[in-house]
């Protein structure tokens, strides 16, 4: 699986793509595949504060729930309303299906996250277990 190099990744399988001080957050292709068919995405409201490493929502398949962890801290400026009615978009296009956009509180937090290559390596190790 190729992971786009225009963004950073977490060990909890989220991606974050920053443009200046705003950033979009979604889950990786690996995450959507291990979850299976996604039936519901629960997201925070605009204005909610995210803090790095803490949960901010959930993704559900018919028989499992996964927490979403914030890759970085910030304030939610936009929520992808499409996912409320069409959660399957996350399965079809995980890289294009951003969940929330935030104003980054501390853009330097991104420095600690994984690059596409590192994430790919991490996933390969995890899948090997």
């Amino acid at each position, binding site marked *: 699986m190729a992971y786009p190099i225009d963004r950073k990744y977490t060990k909890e399988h989220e991606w974050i793509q920053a443009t200046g001080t705003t950033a979009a957050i979604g889950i990786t292709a690996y995450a959507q595949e291990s979850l299976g068919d996604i039936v*519901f995405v629960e997201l925070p409201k605009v204005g909610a504060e995210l803090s790095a490493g803490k949960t901010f929502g959930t993704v*559900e*398949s*018919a*028989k*499992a*729930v996964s927490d979403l962890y914030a890759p970085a801290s910030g304030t939610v400026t936009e929520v992808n309303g499409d996912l409320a009615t069409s959660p399957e978009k996350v399965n079809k296009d995980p890289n294009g299906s951003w969940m929330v956009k935030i104003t980054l509180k501390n853009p330097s937090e991104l420095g600690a996250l994984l690059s596409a290559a590192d994430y790919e390596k991490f996933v390969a190790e995890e899948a090997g277990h």
Partner: protein
Amino acid sequence: MRYLPKSPADREAMLKAIGLRSLDELFAPIPAEYRLSRDLKVPRQMAESEIVEWFKERSRENGEGYTSFLGAGAYFHYRPVVIDSLISRGEFLTAYTPYQAEISQGTLQSIFEFQTMICELTGMEVANASMYDGSTAAAEAVMMAVRLTGRRSVVVARSLHPEYREVLTTYATHQGMPLAVVGFGDDGRVNLEELAKAVSGETACLLIQSPNFFGTIEDADAIAEIAHKNGAMLVVSIAEALSLGIVEPPRHADVIAMEAQSFGVPVAFGGPYCGVIATREKFVRQMPGRLVGQTTDKQGKRGFVLTLATREQHIRREKATSNICTNQALVALMVNIFMTIYGKAGLRELAKQNLAKTAYAAEQFGKQGKLLFTGAPRFNEFVVATSEDPYAINSRLLGHKTVGGLPLKKFFPELGNAALWCCTEMTTRTAIDTAVGLVAESESSVRSLKREADVEEVAR
């Protein structure tokens, strides 16, 4: 032992296959000091005929054949024989929770029909597959409102079934949910002024019952308005499901927590009954309990499955909407069959008979004792205050193989010598006239005692 399908030779053969010599060796993992070396102190093994006789004896000690005027959350309605005939089918009786949908379509489709009928009767959009009973359904509905509003305070009507209120208190105590209780007026309804004062921007929900514990139908629309003005939810408990046959459901409620025992479920000394929660579609993800949904199989054929299971304990564990697992499925099936038998026209006619019996009884009792809460409509219960202690009247009634109304002083000391009477389609005019006659005797003897006392006073 007649339930065990093994001969001594079978056991021998099986032990041999495992490589053991005695059944006792199977229990070797249990430290010897804990193994029981005596017989359990339980009744000796009995023949079926002895068991049946033992329970028949208990039945005779239990008011068998008495006429009853009790209601208060457990109602005597006629149970069509079709119900027991159908629920006794082993395929319903001895099946587990329908997790394996391909071989559980019977249970699943019947629950889907149950959910639909509960929606139709309550005017709500979704209903679950059942809760333990009306009291726990009410408590769980309140906790649902707390999650949905993000607020914690709860306002409860004093005219809610007192035992339902006790259950809510138990559930709320450790959740840090403050409960405020709002009283009732002379018409038996929630005191709206008091209610308006009790509700604030901190209130998660109001919990009322309608018809309430006294049988009085609440003005649910006015109460909903007070709740919604404050951003709070309205939870309505319905203990007498049959009222929905002729009483408008609380259409502005946000959650209805119902006890469906009236629909074909034996009174059975208090259980098992059938709670159910119904609500708006938008609240469904915070609902407790199982839900059945419609879907299709690989060939596109209609079928049913348990759905939205991620709310439940087996997936979300400590973050689940409730810990409920086993529910009241077979009882819900009784309810389902009852609703199907009476249906659209029958439920209304049946409810109307209840209304007529109650109107007659209330009028007759009112001529003797004092009928309370006359200012508002009621369904099949009414409160009568007598001069004499209702316990004394009731013990005389027992002599006529009749169980009188429920004395209310235990729950509502402020109502003095009042009792809650209930009539259903099962109550005969003769039974009503007998009970009224005894109340009349009691009242007149109290009056004559009082006259004698007055005469003595004058003579002195």
